[in-house]
């Protein structure tokens, strides 16, 4: 049996290794693979100031061999220096961090709802195992799971924005409004714009949570301590609440971490269809306009955020579940 501290230490080391591999992968993709890294950092347009080109080559070591470039690249990453966007000509990192806020708002809201709704469905399905509700909720969640998120978003716009006109079809705030905290008008406008994208992102991922919650709970309901509780005459409700559900939640923590990769993928599609200017929307626009500096920085930042989210989930699990230490 290892100590909790050793487990935590190992998880952190793994996260750092993962981030380092991501850094290397990013470097290979954007600096080694294209043959000509200059194409990836400086817009290929005839009217570019030669002084700017020289400055960029100097700053990113673009005329150096790749192994020297790699160290220059590492240094630049740690000082958050990713060059200028081809599209807006401003530092990429400012754009990425700004877009990230919007993505976190969308992903955060949706994740909260997919966990609560998914878990509730899973608990009810496990409780009423074999009933029409069980089958129905599985069919329902798998049906939406099978839907491409971008297509579901299109259908939502079609029905609720264009036909019924209940919600705006696109954007994250009305034109001219900026995000200010503690302002009721802004908040109302934000919720109005956030509703459909959040529904689109939430509904597709409910299945992952409800299915796992159900099977985890069904698993636990065969355990001896549940039988004991029942034999003692404990009510089904109390047994679920005090014994089964808290234990069935543990796999959910792992699942949230694993699913994040999919949720972010869904967010990309939702943002794109709703013109919601988060990091996913901007990334897809960047591919259309060959804005490589943005693409590179966005990919790296997303990867780092997701790795950290995973680490937090791992640590939470290690804290909650004494068995992790034995593993």
């Amino acid at each position, binding site marked *: 049996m290892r100590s909790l501290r050793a487990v935590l230490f190992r998880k952190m080391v*793994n996260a750092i290794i993962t981030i380092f591999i991501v850094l290397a992968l990013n470097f290979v993709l954007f600096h080694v693979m294209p043959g000509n890294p200059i194409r990836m950092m400086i817009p290929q347009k005839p009217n570019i100031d030669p002084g700017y080109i020289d400055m960029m080559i100097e700053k990113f070591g673009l005329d150096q061999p790749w192994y020297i470039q790699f160290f220059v690249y590492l240094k630049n990453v740690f000082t958050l220096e990713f060059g200028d966007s081809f599209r807006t000509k401003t530092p990429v990192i400012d754009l990425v961090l700004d877009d990230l806020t919007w993505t976190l708002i969308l992903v955060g809201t949706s994740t909260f709802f997919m966990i609560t709704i998914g878990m509730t469905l899973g608990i009810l399905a496990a409780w009423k195992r074999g009933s029409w509700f069980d089958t129905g909720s599985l069919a329902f969640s798998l049906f939406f799971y*099978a839907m491409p*998120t*971008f297509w579901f978003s*299109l259908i939502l716009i079609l029905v609720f924005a264009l036909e019924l006109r209940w919600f705006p079809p696109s954007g994250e705030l009305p034109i001219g409004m900026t995000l200010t905290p503690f302002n009721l008008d802004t908040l109302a406008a934000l919720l109005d714009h956030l509703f459909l994208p959040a529904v689109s992102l939430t509904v597709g991922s409910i299945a992952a949570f409800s299915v796992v919650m159900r099977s985890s709970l069904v698993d636990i309901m065969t355990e001896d301590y549940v039988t004991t509780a029942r034999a003692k005459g404990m009510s089904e409700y109390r047994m679920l609440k005090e014994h089964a559900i808290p234990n069935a939640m543990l796999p959910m923590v792992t699942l949230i971490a694993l699913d994040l990769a999919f949720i972010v993928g869904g967010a990309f599609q939702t943002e794109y269809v709703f013109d919601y200017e988060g990091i996913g929307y901007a990334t897809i626009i960047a591919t259309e306009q060959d804005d*490589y500096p943005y693409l590179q920085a966005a990919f790296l930042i997303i*990867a780092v955020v997701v790795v950290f989210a995973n680490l937090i989930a791992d640590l939470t699990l290690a804290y909650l579940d004494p068995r992790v230490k034995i593993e």
Partner: protein
Amino acid sequence: MSGIAGRLLKLLPLTEPAREKLRLGAKRITATSKHFRKSPTGMAGLGILVFFVILALFAGQVMVLLSWVSDATGHPWDTAYGPFEITGDGVMRPPSPAHWLGTDDNERDILSRVIYGSRVSLEIGLVAAAASMGLGTLVGLLAGFWGGWKDEVLMRITDVFLVLPWLALMIVLATVLPGGQSVSKVIFVISITGWSYTARIVRAQVLSLKERGFVERARAIGSSDMHIVRRHIFPNVFPLVFANAIITVALSILSESTLSYIALGPPPTEVVTWGNILYGASQRNAMGNELYWWIIIPGLCIVFVVLSFTFIGYALDEIFNPKLRKR
């Protein structure tokens, strides 16, 4: 095994051990299919899949058949339209007896495009899933069997691909990799992003098999590593991989449609897929022009194909995975 099949086997010019192996294999398949037929979801999935496979294999014949139906109802078509055929019946027309789903921005028949679209969508899904399964199984087998630092290295790489948001990685790969757009590039991009989960489950399975008696016995009588992996470990891992592969096909089809929708799929001028039909629809603002069927039908095709693979995968998982057997 009974009657005809048994007698047929005897007729084949095989050595006795080979015949015995075939007999055992056939017995296993019969047993599995007996279980499978009892699963309503599995059979529903199979039914839907058979429908789409027939559509894909006989796309041309299906169009001829539909043109006869239209003839019989008094609205003869000019021909059984091909997916790239310019019909000369006007741009972006709503559904009519001549074009059941209307025409697109190039005067092409949308119904025909949807039917032919099943071909590449299924092809990419199947090939990409097979490739990522192959890669995942290989990595999982090696990591589990080798153990030690080699296992550690392989698993850290697997972790990276597991946590990275799949769509972000696919977008970056599709944009940065050289060679323009092609079906094979899309297959490569999908399989490179999709192998990690398989590697994980294969490795876990191998680790538990390694400790089992029959592997130790094989080692004791001096079997080579290669022999042990091929004859003892792989056959036991295979069913799990197979169930997983079916679900991976679903994910690959979703990936293809998403890539095509954001213009990173196979070239729309040469290849028709459901994803790029939807891309065309959104480029031409089908929604604003009230051409709803242009969006709804290709999307539903994706949903049902993905659903069919998910259903089959779940049913198989229930058969092969001892943890999920009915309690």
